Structure formats: structure tokens, C-alpha cells
């Protein structure tokens, strides 16, 4: 049969059975749409977690003192006083894979500006903290290492602090606030960063030179933790190892002894988060595959019924000269038309549903071309297979057996 006639015959037979055509398509539509939507949700949450982890900074390593056991009672991590500024110097000098390292202390502070006050965390760090964490200023300038050496009372504040102490859109650079009653000059305001992976507001903080916070606010001599960054992503592991070696040597610990500190890298954190979002994606993909499978069974059902019910038609066609391959081709084209049309509607519906989820539930969704192609190909394959398989059986019959079929 000519291609044109085949197409005509297929279209005619689809048009003749609009309800059946629609029902067959429905299986594909629902399957494809759910796969697209589910994968969009999975992909979207994965990407948003990754984006949040990247707000941590680039190639970040965090070094905490190991929780010390004082008289058998385990203390909170970071409670040890074993880390000192010499450790920071040693890392700066002896770890080639480390680009930046800063000591870190954190205190809570009562901030006052006129009659407004606000309670937040005050971090004491070196200026390179801003490099490590990819923090940028929208206004003003950074404090310097010489501010740190002289423990100058200057600070950089986040947007949330600005809003609460100065009102929205105010530029407080140059103003003075009191932190725990000590006057500080505001030298800069950080760019808005939003929430981190744990839902904390990253703009609700004050950053001041390390020595200023350590000596003037907290009055301690040790450091609470260190933050470092590796020169490049592949060097994170090296950097971690180098820091470990240097600190162990510095703390007089033998190679077989347990370190008295913990190093966590951004890769570790990302891996943990990815594992969580991986579980989510698997869960969603499972649900979606089940719906696609149910859709596939629906297609199979209708195709089987349709071919069985049309065995007589096949017999009639063969009795007037249709060859097995003409019959097969006709069914194949019908299945293909249904799958392509159903797939197209399914993809559109899936995209629509994803957008609705994004807009109404405020979930992050990402539609990938791969998920569209995959579900499209998969459902088409199902449609064609289940249409072709019974048709091939019918096409192999003797014309008279097909005609007699009931």
C-alpha cells in the first residue's frame, strides 16, 4: 500500500473510533505528564539544594576542634580551647593547596541604633572570609588586616540588620551602632544571600575583624573554628589532608593518634545533601514510573482489545489483497500517531502542571529536555510495542481464520 493511503487509512480508523483513540491516548498523556512533573520536582529540589550549598562559598573547608571529653563527659563540639591563632598561621604557611584560611569566633550581640535594637550573631573573622564565602558588599568597603591587628571597632552588616536598625533601603555606611554597648562604625553592607540549606537567614549577621570580636566582645584567647578554601575543587581533598597533617604536628599528635579536630569539606556536605535529594528523586521517579506503567497497561489493554475486535477487519483487508506487512504497517502507524499525539499533549500537560506546582506550592521545579525526550520515547515505545505485537499476530493469520474470528 502507498504511504499516503496507509496514512489515510490509519487516520480514518482513528477518527472512526474517537472514544477509543482518546482513551488510548489518555494512558500516554497521564504517564508522560506525571513523569515530566515528577522529574521536574525532583530535579528542581536537587538544583535548589545545590544552589544553597554553593552559597556556603567555593571549595570551603571547615575546621572545628574535636569535642573534648572532660572527665568522661562529652562536651559540645567547638567547646574545646585547643585551637589558637598559631594554627591559622601554620596552615597559611604550610598548606600549598589552601588558598585562604581565617579564624572564626562567634558571639551573640545586642545591637542598638538610637531607639532601635536587634539581637544577632557577631562573627569575628579575617577579611579573606569574604573571599572564602563569596560574600560581596553592596555598599562601603571591607575592613582590613590592619584593622584586625589593632582590633578596630568597625563592622560589616547584613541586609536584615540594616532593615531592623535603619529601615529598608537605608544606607548605614559611616553610621555608628552599639554592639553589647561598644560603639562600632559600620564600614560596609553585604549583598543579600537569602536562606541557607538549613533555612537560616544568611543576611542576619554582623561581621567584624577577628581580634575585635575575640578580645573586645568575647574576651577569650582561643579561636572557635577555622574556615578555609582550597585553591580548586579537585584540591579540596589535598587541602583537607594537608591541614590535618599540619594541625596534628602542631598539636604534637603522632600519625596513629586521633586528631583533636574535625575537618568538614563542602564536598562532604554536598554529598550528604545530594544523597537526600537523590532519595527524593528516586521516590518521585518510582511514583512516576508506576503511573507510566499503569498508562502502559492501559494502552496494552486497549490495543489488544482493538486488534482482537478488528481481526475481522484485518481478514477483510487481507481477503481483498492486503499483505501481512500492509496490515502491520497500518497498525504501526495508528499506534505511532496515537503515541506522538498523546506524547505531545502529555508533555504540554506535564509542563503546565509543573508550572502550577511552582506557582501555587512555591516548589522549585526544573523541566529538563532529557525528561521530556525520555518519557516521550518511552511511552511511544510502549504504544508501538503493544499496538504492533497483537497486530503482528493478526497479520500472520490465514485470511480465512481472521475472517472467521469471533
Amino acid at each position, binding site marked *: 500500500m502507498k504511504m499516503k493511503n496507509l496514512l489515510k487509512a490509519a487516520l480514518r480508523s482513528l477518527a472512526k473510533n474517537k472514544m477509543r483513540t482518546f482513551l488510548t491516548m489518555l494512558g500516554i498523556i497521564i504517564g508522560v505528564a506525571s513523569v515530566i512533573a515528577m522529574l521536574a520536582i525532583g530535579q528542581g529540589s536537587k538544583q535548589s539544594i545545590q544552589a544553597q550549598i554553593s552559597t556556603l562559598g567555593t571549595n570551603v573547608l571547615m575546621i572545628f576542634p574535636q569535642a573534648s571529653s572532660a572527665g568522661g563527659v562529652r562536651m559540645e563540639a567547638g567547646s574545646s580551647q585547643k585551637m589558637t591563632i598559631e594554627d591559622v598561621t601554620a596552615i597559611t604557611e604550610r598548606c600549598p593547596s589552601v588558598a585562604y584560611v581565617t579564624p572564626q569566633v562567634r558571639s551573640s550581640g545586642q545591637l542598638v541604633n538610637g531607639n532601635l535594637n536587634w539581637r544577632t550573631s557577631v562573627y569575628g573573622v579575617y577579611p579573606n572570609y569574604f573571599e572564602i564565602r563569596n560574600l560581596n558588599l553592596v555598599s562601603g568597603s571591607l575592613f582590613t588586616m590592619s584593622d584586625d591587628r589593632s582590633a578596630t571597632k568597625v563592622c560589616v552588616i547584613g541586609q536584615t540588620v540594616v532593615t531592623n536598625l535603619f529601615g529598608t533601603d537605608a544606607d548605614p555606611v559611616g553610621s555608628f551602632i552599639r554592639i553589647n554597648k561598644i560603639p562600632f562604625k559600620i564600614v560596609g553592607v553585604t549583598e543579600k544571600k537569602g536562606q541557607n540549606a538549613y533555612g537560616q537567614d544568611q543576611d542576619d549577621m554582623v561581621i567584624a575583624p577577628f581580634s575585635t570580636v575575640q578580645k573586645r566582645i568575647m574576651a577569650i584567647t582561643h579561636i572557635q573554628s577555622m574556615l578555609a578554601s582550597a585553591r580548586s575543587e579537585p584540591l579540596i581533598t589535598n587541602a583537607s589532608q594537608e591541614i590535618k597533617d599540619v594541625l596534628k604536628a602542631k598539636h604534637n599528635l603522632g600519625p596513629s593518634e586521633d586528631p583533636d579536630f574535625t575537618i568538614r569539606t563542602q564536598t562532604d556536605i554536598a554529598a550528604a545533601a545530594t544523597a537526600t535529594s537523590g532519595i527524593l528523586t528516586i521516590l518521585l521517579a518510582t511514583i512516576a514510573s508506576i503511573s507510566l506503567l499503569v498508562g502502559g497497561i492501559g494502552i496494552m489493554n486497549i490495543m489488544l482489545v482493538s486488534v482482537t475486535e478488528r481481526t475481522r477487519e484485518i481478514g477483510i483487508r*487481507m481477503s*481483498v489483497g492486503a499483505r501481512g506487512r500492509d496490515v502491520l504497517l497500518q497498525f504501526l502507524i495508528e499506534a505511532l500517531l496515537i503515541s506522538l499525539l498523546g506524547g505531545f499533549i502529555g508533555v504540554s500537560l506535564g509542563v503546565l502542571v509543573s508550572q502550577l506546582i511552582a506557582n501555587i506550592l512555591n516548589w522549585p521545579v526544573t523541566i529538563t529536555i532529557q525528561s521530556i525526550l525520555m518519557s516521550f520515547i518511552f511511552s511511544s515505545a510502549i504504544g508501538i510495542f503493544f499496538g504492533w505485537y497483537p497486530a503482528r499476530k493478526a497479520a500472520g493469520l490465514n485470511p480465512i481464520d481472521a475472517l472467521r474470528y469471533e
Partner: protein
Amino acid sequence: MHLQCSGVAPVAGEDINMDKPIISVRALVKTYKMGDVEVHALRGVNAEIGKDDFVAILGKSGSGKSTFMNIIGCLDVPTRGQYHLDGVDVSSLTKDQLANLRNRKIGFVFQSFNLLSRTSALENVELPLMYNKKITSRDMRERSLNALEAVGLADRAHHFPNQLSGGEQQRVAIARSLVNDPVVILADEPTGNLDTRTSLEVMAIFQKLNRKGITIVIVTHEADIAAFTKRNITFRDGKIIKSVEVNKPRNAVHELANMPVMVEEEEV
């Protein structure tokens, strides 16, 4: 007991092909196996049907008439025996070649019409042409309309089978069987579901086609119908037991011409 049945051409001047029969079967056997039971539907049939012949096959129910028709129509294959159609040894053909043969040389008319439902009369008639690559769309339309015209249904071309009477459906089926210019039309009880008048109309069409040179074989239970043909072959228990020429075939057109009066009287 093997009977040789040779077609005799009663019409003068058309016996050129007489030595070469259109249909020739030798020792045809068809056995159906149903588990342990074997049904011998045909037990060695020999027959020759010549060009221009018009044959009626008679016989009791279950005597193998349909089985025979299906085999010579290439819808089914014999268990044993030879079959030549228009000089071609059918048993040596592949499935696809058989399909082509059905398409080009044979027109089959079924007792139950076997039209595609929800498909117009015209499209039903076009069906065989769809499987003939050499025919263009315009040709297809024209030839199908001509075929419908030949069975007197040109005005019903766009009606669906469920909008047609049984007789009209059978005429559509006949139009479909002749649209591809077959050498032989095979009809298994074409008037089985029709009343006397419509049966006559169908026989009139067959007689007209036969006069044009198409060989026709029909199966019928009615001696009345067989009387419109040129030769009657009788089957019994899977064999041909009798083959007689019809002395003076009845003319369906003439008899139809006499009928309407009666029908109109009944209607009053």
C-alpha cells in the same frame, strides 16, 4: 470416484481459451484437525472451470462447498493437492504473492457481506484498489464509482453499510469484488440472506458480469438460484458427485421485469 468437470462455452465465438481453464484443481484434500478428531472437509476434488463459465455449487450443509471456495479464492490453503489459477501454480506461491493474486485476479463475495463498518460504500469499494500500487487516487475514485454504477448503487456511494439494506450491502460487496477487474468472482451463498427479489437482482448483476467475460462461481442452496447459472456442480461428503450443464439458464433481468407488478399489488 473422480469426476472430470470441463466447462463448455455456450456462447458462440468465445471459446478461444477453452483449452486453458481458469481454475483447475487436482486431488484437492482439506483435513481439519481438532485435537484427536480429523474432519475431512475435502476428500480429493478434481475440477476445471473454464473462462466465461458461470458455475453454481450445490450440496448439503457440511459437504465442503465453503472449504472448496475458500481454497480456490486463496483465502485458505489445501492440505494436499494441486491448484492452478489462470495458469499459475498457487501452491508454490508465498503469502505475499497469494495476497497479490487475491488482489488482482479474484473477487470474493461473502454470505455475510463483510463490509467495513462505519466506512462509506465508496470507500469499501475502493479497498482493493488501495492495495494496488499502480492505481492513482483519481483512478481509484473513478473505478469505484463505475463499479457502484454497475451494481446500480451510484447514488448511495456515501452511505454507510448500516444505512443500506442487506441486498444493497451485498451489491456493494459485489462492486468491491469487481473493482479490480478480476478474472474470476467467487461468491459463497451471495443470496443466502436475501429475499427472492433482491436475490434476483444480485443474479442479474452476476449474469451481466458473466456476459462481459468474468468467470463466476457461486455457492447456493437454492435450485432456483442455480438455474440462473450455466453449470451446476454438486458436492457430497467432500467430493464432487455431479456436474451438469443447465439446459436453458433463466434470465434474471426478464424475470425481474415481471415482478414489480406483483410487488406493487401487494403494497396496495
